[in-house]
């Protein structure tokens, strides 16, 4: 019987120090991009104003971070290479950490898995020093260097073939590095940053004066065009940032960046609670772009939870979840509502670059909307007023902004384009509404209110619709019956699985032939037996809205078009339909100017 040598008795021994160091280093240095992370954090903690990153096509072979920060002196540098030596540990201890790094582990760890070269000139010093480290051996020499520090790491894991074998492809390292540098660029708009891969600039960002500017530069879109400003949080939590407009949804979460006290973290929890805040504004499996900054006292968040500091632990997960979801809902509700119907001030402001001075500031709406029913109620009180604001003929009002006085032609009301889109002139351009998507949104919210409220009016039918259901449809019908009755349906069981529909919701079309109901029942199979009543109601409402809404190809009269637009803006989320597609697009005069070459830049189209 063969025995594994390591398990033989009496063979336990203390590991040599370099092995211990390598194991420990492994905790921090999982992959080349984690080296980069440590170096970046060091650079940003150094008080630099610019930070440049260079990578080889395989970042494991070569990566270098240069900053113009405080630098290290001849005396400090060897210490920096010693384990648990740091300048960042506050007197108050671990829980008062406000810098990005604090463990004092990074540089020695890196030195144990790669060739590390540090060149640094401390502020106020005339001379620079270079330290070349490999394991515990450090060689120091005096050199010439600009103020600041350059850290170069080469041949990561070259001496540890088993680890090297498990590295991901260079390409995925580069991808992760781009995301990492982007994240820190978002966290620190005040630092000019660049990322060069194999001599080619991937990112080149000048110092920005505001978060909005940096966000705009990174996502290559005017921040106010592509994002909604996030404001929220109950003290001591403060939430700020930018929420991608729902129509700019993505297939992955790669464009979501979360920061806790300036530290970039990855959190499924935060991502999910934000997604909840978007609710039905996004299609399933699509994700918003977002930059979210959370500020909270250091005693309710533990950043020392994971060695790579990628994850943090909150003292109260549920609280953070609710706060974020609510803030996202509120900010989206306020901003999208008001973007959609703000004709005058908001858009005019956007043109003069001052939109950000009105964060969600549509006056009659509370800045912080916490409950959905409240949102509905607020919204419902608006239509007439909106309508006046929204379709007022040019010059009918002495608006504050000069831009509004530009001629927009006589009021021609709403137009239907190809029986699919509604075109409405607004003061600063043109509103294009997708009639189906818009109606879907309207019906969805009506249905939701009905499902939560009292029984709704049903139109009884002269010729009751008799449907023969299969076993599954019938089962689903029985389960959904209470919901459907609230919507205005009434049923009568004839025999077996034959059902007569005695009434249908008043005013809806397309239900006369029973196809829509059958589709609803078929969709209902998936959710009818769920236990979450509210969830079922939401899904019934969605399915009902989808099948009742007017379709592309339905022609609408002028009053119908006007009514649809009024109703759309009375909803809580006029901007998106229940599947997350946009219901409307605003083409500003500035877009037309660009299209006609009167103004430089890319039009939105």
């Amino acid at each position: 019987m063969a025995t594994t040598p390591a398990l033989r008795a009496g063979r336990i021994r203390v590991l040599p120090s370099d092995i211990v160091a390598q194991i420990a280093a492994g905790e921090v240095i999982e992959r080349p991009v984690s080296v980069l992370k440590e170096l970046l954090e060091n650079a940003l903690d150094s008080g630099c104003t610019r930070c440049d990153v260079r990578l080889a096509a395989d970042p494991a072979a070569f990566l270098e971070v240069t900053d113009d920060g405080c630098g290290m002196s001849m005396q400090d540098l060897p210490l920096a290479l010693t384990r648990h030596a740091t300048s960042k540990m506050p007197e108050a201890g671990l829980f008062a950490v406000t810098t990005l790094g604090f463990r004092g582990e990074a540089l020695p760890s890196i030195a144990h898995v790669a060739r590390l070269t540090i060149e640094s000139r401390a502020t106020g010093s005339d001379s620079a020093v270079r330290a070349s480290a490999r394991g515990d051996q450090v060689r120091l020499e005096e050199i010439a260097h600009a103020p600041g520090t350059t850290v170069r790491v080469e041949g990561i894991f070259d001496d540890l073939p088993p680890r090297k074998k498990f590295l991901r492809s260079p390409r995925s390292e580069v991808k992760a590095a781009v995301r990492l540098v982007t994240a820190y660029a978002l966290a620190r708009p005040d630092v000019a940053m660049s990322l060069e891969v194999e001599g080619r600039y991937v990112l080149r960002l000048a110092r920005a004066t505001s978060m909005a500017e940096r966000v705009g530069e990174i996502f290559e879109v005017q921040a106010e065009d592509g994002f909604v400003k996030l404001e929220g949080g109950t003290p001591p939590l403060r939430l700020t940032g930018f929420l991608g407009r729902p129509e700019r949804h993505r297939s992955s979460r790669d464009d979501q960046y979360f920061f806790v006290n300036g530290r970039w973290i990855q959190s499924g929890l935060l991502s999910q609670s934000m997604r909840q805040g978007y609710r039905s504004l996004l299609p399933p499996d699509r994700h918003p772009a977002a930059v979210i900054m959370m500020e909270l006292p250091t005693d309710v968040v533990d950043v020392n939870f994971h060695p790579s500091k990628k994850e943090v632990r909150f003292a109260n997960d549920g609280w953070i979840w609710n706060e974020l979801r609510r803030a996202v809902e509120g900010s989206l509700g306020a901003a999208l509502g008001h973007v959609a119907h703000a004709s005058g001030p908001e858009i005019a402001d956007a043109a003069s670059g001052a939109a950000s001075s009105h964060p969600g500031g549509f006056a009659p709406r509370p800045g912080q909307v916490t409950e959905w029913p409240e949102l509905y109620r607020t919204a419902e009180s608006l239509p007439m007023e909106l309508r006046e604001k929204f379709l007022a003929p040019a010059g009918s009002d002495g608006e504050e902004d000069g831009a509004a006085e530009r001629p927009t032609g006589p009021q021609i009301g709403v137009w239907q384009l190809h029986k699919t889109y509604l075109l409405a002139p607004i003061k600063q351009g043109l509103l294009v509404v997708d009639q189906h998507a818009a109606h879907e949104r309207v019906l969805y919210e009506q249905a939701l209110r009905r499902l939560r409220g009292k029984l709704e009016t049903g139109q009884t039918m002269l010729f009751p619709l008799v449907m023969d259901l299969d076993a599954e449809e019938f089962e689903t019908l029985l389960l959904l019956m209470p919901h459907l009755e609230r919507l205005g349906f009434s049923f009568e069981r004839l025999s077996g699985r034959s059902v007569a529909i005695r009434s249908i919701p008043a005013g809806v079309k397309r239900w006369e032939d029973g196809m829509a109901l059958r589709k609803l029942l078929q969709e209902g199979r998936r959710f009818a037996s769920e236990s979450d009543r509210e969830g079922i109601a939401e899904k019934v409402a969605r399915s009902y809205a989808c099948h009742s809404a007017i379709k592309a190809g339905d022609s609408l009269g002028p009053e119908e078009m006007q009514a649809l637009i009024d109703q759309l803006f009375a909803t809580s989320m006029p901007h998106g339909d229940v599947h997350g597609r946009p219901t409307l697009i605003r083409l500003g005069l500035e877009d037309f100017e660009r299209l006609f070459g009167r103004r430089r830049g890319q039009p939105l189209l």
Partner: protein
Amino acid sequence: MKFSIHQKDLQRLLTVAGDGVPKKTTLPILSNYLIEARPAGVRIAATDLEISISTSAETAVETPGQVAVNAKRLQEVVRELAKDEVHVQVDAGKFKMKCARSAFELYPMPVDDFPTLAQERATFSARLPAKTFQALVDLTCYAVSTDETRPALGGVLIQITDKEIRFIATDGHRMSKAHASGKFPVEKGEPREAIIPPKALIPVAAWATESDHEVEMELSSAAATFKVGATTLTSRLLQGPFPPYESVIPKDNKKQLIVGREALLSSIRRVAKLSDSVSHQIRFSVRKDRLHLSVSTADIGAAKDDLEAAYGEDDLEIGYNAVYLQDILKSLDSDKVLFTLNSPVSAGVVTAVESKRDATALCLIMPLRLQD
């Protein structure tokens, strides 16, 4: 082709045929009139492929021929011409028109592109006085469905027996069955029925009323043709089946409510201003010799009105769609109307009390289930 015609006559022909020109079309030829000069006179035709209209006038034709010209432009030009003789000719591929001192040239489209509707042998024909036809149309066309899922309801079912002609329209929520009995001659063929869209019936009624000509109706298996004087409209038939309308007419409605038509109509108009924009719900509270109308709409407000009526049965609460009620009341012409009711969820019957029209109607309206 060469002919002359007075501006007034030409304009009339163009206006009548103009009802057949589609407002929007993907087939360019359909935006044209087909003008045909025959030795006996001029015929002008237009079609949207569902209905086609052809109308003619006697006039001096020098050379017969055909031409297809843009309907809208021709109509606009002719409207502006001097009230004088118009000389029309096709020469060197151009449509030329002279009137007084003005001259116009239009570039025609190939005549061969103009669709010709297959003429089928009529299996049935009937004649109706203008007033009767107008009454039947007025009493029914409002109830035609606009829901595309049930195409047969998008038309009026016309049934003719030797004693009676019936027009029936329904959208599933209300129904109107109008009939004119009495003596109108039924020629050849057996009793027949067809479903015809309102857009064919409404212009025919208008021409008949205007000219006080009889309407001659012919049915074939695929089309219905209506002749009024020198004008013919051919309509494709809508495919059935039409629902079994007879079976839904209630037989056991015992509660009779008689109320002034104008008074009820204006009361509904007032109160319905505050009704829900989708359901248009209005509540009838029927009491002894009184009818209370009320509306209460979440987020909007409430309204009440009160009418004298003749009623002697148990109190009744019924919800109706105010728009449907107004349609019915407007189509009737009597001083008073009779509601024959049963329960809050069954069909109500509305009829005119002593109609002056040449046709009588039975109107059914399904209630809205009241939300209590």
